[in-house]
């Protein structure tokens, strides 16, 4: 390497090279500040999460016993429990899954495997991403109009079936998008090989693509379902009850749910009910976090396999 006179590169005599001041010390200092700020921001979210969990547990754990899980709501905070709310949440979960899973996965398969690049598929795609951004309370208004009022002979009005159907519509976009993303990640060579052996598209999808995509689809479905059972607003709008002293007896039964019960207890002025709300929150968080843990475990296993 031969060194050349740096001045040779400067056309204008007026600019002197030594005026350039890289100020590395100051810039590196700013770098450090920025890096710390980014760590602080990330950790802030987690600190709030930890604080939320700790304070909820501190408030609710003393109330959490087997009688809390098996008693019905009561005017007396000490004797009140979440039996009907927990049962309602389980019913909602099953009904929502029964409708949202087949319809969501079916739509995802249709869009990704059968109807790619048609005008119909494009409209559907825009429509689904719009639906995903509609606030959940609007789905409540839809459920109130369609499932509670128009389909009252079938759903029985403000019933657990109407609630489950509303939640199913709410999480359909989540399941459809998850199904499509998973199917997109399956290599095309598999489909081409299947069709080269004389299979129809559906046979390839059923026998080769779906088995590989199943963990991803299940992950998306579980995340969607955990969103559904944490939802409160649409259930309030379609008319879930806060005081249900019995377990749901059938699809047309009126119902309560854990989030509804938490909302009700939190909005009461008496402190004793606040402890109940905290205890019910622990149960709800336990259910949701274990569902999320299953989903994350499935996803990680699926990613490692490929």
């Amino acid at each position: 390497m031969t060194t050349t006179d740096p001045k040779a590169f400067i056309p204008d005599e007026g600019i002197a090279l030594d005026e350039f001041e890289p100020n590395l010390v100051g810039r590196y200092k700013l770098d450090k500040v920025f890096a710390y700020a980014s760590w602080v921001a990330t950790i802030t979210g987690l600190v709030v999460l930890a604080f939320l969990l700790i304070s909820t547990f501190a408030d609710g754990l003393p109330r959490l016993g087997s009688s809390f899980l098996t008693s019905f709501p009561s005017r007396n905070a000490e004797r009140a429990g979440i039996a009907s709310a927990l049962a309602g949440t389980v019913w909602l979960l099953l009904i929502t899954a029964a409708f949202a899973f087949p319809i969501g996965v079916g739509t995802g398969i249709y869009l990704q495997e059968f109807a790619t690049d048609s005008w119909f598929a494009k409209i559907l795609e825009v429509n689904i991403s719009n639906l995903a951004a509609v606030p959940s309370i609007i789905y409540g208004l839809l459920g109130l109009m369609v499932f509670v009022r128009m389909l009252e002979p079938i759903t029985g009005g403000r019933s657990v079936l109407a609630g489950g159907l509303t939640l199913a519509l709410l999480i359909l976009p989540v399941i459809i998008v998850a199904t499509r993303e998973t199917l997109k990640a399956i290599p095309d060579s598999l489909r081409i090989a299947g069709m080269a052996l004389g299979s129809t598209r559906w046979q390839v999808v059923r026998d080769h693509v779906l088995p590989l995509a199943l963990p991803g689809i299940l992950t998306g479905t579980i995340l969607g379902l955990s969103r559904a059972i944490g939802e409160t607003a649409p259930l309030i709008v379609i008319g879930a009850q806060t005081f249900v002293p019995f377990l749901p007896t059938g699809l047309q039964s009126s119902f309560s749910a854990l989030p509804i019960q938490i909302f009700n207890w939190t909005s009461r002025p008496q402190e004793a009910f606040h402890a109940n709300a905290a205890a019910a929150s622990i149960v709800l968080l336990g259910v949701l976090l274990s569902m999320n843990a299953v989903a994350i475990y499935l996803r990680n296993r699926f990613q490692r396999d490929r």
Partner: protein
Amino acid sequence: MTDSYLPPEHSSANLWQPNREASKRSQAIVKFIFGSFAVLSIFTTLGIVATLIFETIKFFSQVSLVQFLFDNQWTPLFSQPRYGIFVLISATFLTSLIALLVAVPLGLLAAVCLSEYAPRNVRAWLKPALEILAGVPTVVFGFFALLIVTPILRTFIPGLQTFNGLSAGLILGIALLPTIASLSEDAIFAVPQDLRQGSYALGATKRETVTDVVLPAALSGIVAAIILGVARAVGETMIVTLAAGQNPTLTLDPRVPIQTMTSFIVQVAKGDVPVGTLKYDTLFAVGMTLFVITLLLNILSFWFVRKFQEKYE
């Protein structure tokens, strides 16, 4: 393994006849069923729009649009009802603004931290932890805001009432943080490594590379994430219902009780309103306003992504 491909002498392999007609028929049936499932999502949209329009028209046959947009009071449950939607919009605006002041800087910095600063093994723990935050139901956040955060804030903020926009907005911001962080992180992660290396080669420090090269390159995705965050803040219900109160006031004071559009819907729906009354129609008129606002935000986000997305090959 190879001998398994040779059929035994008594095999009936040569008798196998593909039943193409049956295969094609079953494919057509499946395609029809799945296609009609897909149509259901279009019916959902149509159902939402039809429901809202139907009841909103009934509402506006009794209340003038001018009053709805320009009155400065919202008292539909009083004997002398007034319908100034702007009162509810101002509350929604206030809580969303506070939430975004929390969620945008924290979410963006967290996204930068996850994609640029955190070592791989730390990131593998941080991301699921933030996902847990995203999985906390909003009613639990509402409980937290009303019964834990507000009492703490009241110890050092004079004049803060039991129900207030501040605590609702702050916790709403925490609830939005994971959404904004994870969507922005996707956008930042998609910026090609060449750009960063080019920036380093020109002598930029890491911070300069992030703020002057990577973030501008990911701008369309980041803005889309923020707009979606705004849409979620506007539509969020339980945190504001529990922590901000049920008191429709035209104010931007974060210390007093206010009522957002969503908490009005909850307040009315909770009280078993008879069908066909004006109160019932009010529910849908407010829902319509909320739907239009979130739809506009959504369109804005699509437009922004399409217009400003950078393509790298």
